[in-house]
């Protein structure tokens, strides 16, 4: 996950490099650090360094990290010749390396030689059965081939061993959502909230899933998690504010005639509506009339 400030910094650097202002190496390092996927840019700027002997020699040992980064970017952009060249260079330099072995597997995946990639990964796992990256590649391969249920099965097995891998829990949740298996997705977000209770995005995602599941109890819980997201983000999260409004409307519809009105609940939704109007007034005043009309239609 990348924060807004980090993304802004990355974009700034990217613009600078794109416009000939230098800083390609810093940009590539930042992409690596933040683990973002900007393969076209990485390929372009990475190759410009690798193809220039002077720039390449300045990197020293980091040259090989760059080869790896460019190889992966090339695979992502389907420039398989470039990828193959990089992998070959790395294999020559580090003949027995597991890291290069993984890259070879990745290359086979890019070529869609699934069986060959599986062979490579199996042999890597024989040497090191706890290689997390290789386990995850298998999940990715299943996903790439459209076997989402197989991907889920592999990922569940992975998480039995590596249960602290938050990214894996998030991925599993997203896979479940893509199959509309919302209860299972909710379970994943519950695990994430248990491990990292102060990350607002997990509260928000959990609330979204509960809202989608529907039913009075889920909606009431969703509302609480939208509220906790607002709490954790200092009231700035637009989705959470909208979430409160949506939950209130849905709860009111379900609870019609059943219980006495929930005073505290309606106060919360009025506050959320007011906060939304304030934000829109400040940052998107053109859309304020539309928002006001929308909230009015929602009876808030």
């Amino acid at each position, binding site marked *: 996950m990348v924060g807004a400030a980090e993304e802004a910094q990355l974009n700034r650097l990217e613009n600078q490099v794109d416009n000939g202002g230098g800083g390609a190496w810093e940009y590539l390092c930042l992409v690596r650090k933040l683990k973002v996927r900007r393969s076209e840019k990485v390929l372009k700027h990475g190759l410009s360094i690798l193809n220039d002997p002077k720039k390449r020699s300045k990197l020293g040992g980091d040259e090989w990290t760059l080869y790896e980064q460019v190889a992966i970017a090339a695979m992502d952009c389907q420039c398989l010749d470039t990828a193959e060249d990089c992998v070959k260079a790395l294999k020559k330099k580090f003949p027995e390396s597991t890291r290069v072995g993984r890259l070879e597997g990745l290359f086979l*995946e890019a070529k869609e030689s699934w069986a060959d990639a599986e062979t490579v990964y199996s042999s890597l796992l024989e040497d090191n059965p706890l290689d997390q990256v290789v386990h995850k590649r298998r999940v990715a391969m299943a996903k790439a081939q459209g076997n989402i249920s197989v991907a889920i099965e592999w990922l569940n097995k992975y998480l039995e061993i590596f249960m602290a891998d938050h990214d894996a829990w998030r991925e599993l949740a997203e896979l479940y959502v893509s199959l509309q298996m919302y209860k299972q997705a909710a379970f994943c977000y519950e695990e994430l909230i248990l491990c990292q209770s102060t990350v607002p995005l997990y509260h928000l995602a959990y609330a*979204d899933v509960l809202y989608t599941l529907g039913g009075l109890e889920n909606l009431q819980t969703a509302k609480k998690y939208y509220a906790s997201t607002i709490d954790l983000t200092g009231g700035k999260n637009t989705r959470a504010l909208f979430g409160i409004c949506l939950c209130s409307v849905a709860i009111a519809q379900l609870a019609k005639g059943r219980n006495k009105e929930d005073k505290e609940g309606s106060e919360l939704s009025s506050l959320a509506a007011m906060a939304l109007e304030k934000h829109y007034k400040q940052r998107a005043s053109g859309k304020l009339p539309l928002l006001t*009309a929308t909230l009015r239609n929602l009876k808030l």
Partner: protein
Amino acid sequence: MSIQGLPTFSSKPKRAKVSFVSRTKSAACEERSPVAAAKITRSGCWESWAHKTSAVNGILVGCLGKNDEAIDIVDAVPLSHSLIGLLPTLEIALTQIEEHFGAQGLSIVGYYHANERYDNFELGNAAKKIGDHICRYFAQAAVFLLDNKKLETLPKGKDRNPVFQLYIRDASKNWKQAGSDGSIRLSIKEPSANLVLMDYISSEKWRDIVDFDDHLDDISNDWLNPDLVK
């Protein structure tokens, strides 16, 4: 250019693929009659070129045409590029889209979807469910699924056909691909639409497109994309 990459399993592993959304600009017609031909013009903004590695979707806006036999698709609003199966973004967007376009006498008439994977040509369950949801707004709503193969061959040939498949809900509420029995066909009203589309790709206008997800992340992003399609 097609991008058929591979999932990198860092924090957001997804299979990169060609996935696009084209945005209709001027009037498009979808005639439901025995002779029917659906004509769609696009000025071609590539929403999901900006999100190559995920599924994307959006809402189609329009009105009933002459004699209630045709449905004009007038505009499109890009919706999401993440966690498409969840309701909140969809519901907020539908409410706002209805409110905004209602004032112009238009309504929600359809939905478009582009799959995450390049070689996936099926209308998935998530897309069907959203289609069902849209049918509550407009009973004859149609679903458009991007056809990656057609899109890939677009720069090579002079194909003027639309690059997506049309799905209609039948009497038993199942989504079926239209056109195989000849009752409804898609064609492009404006012959140069695909050329405009390719121009938008090469000039990288797709980088500036804003969908509803982007708007919710930062409300100063305008999901109407007023400057993008002129």
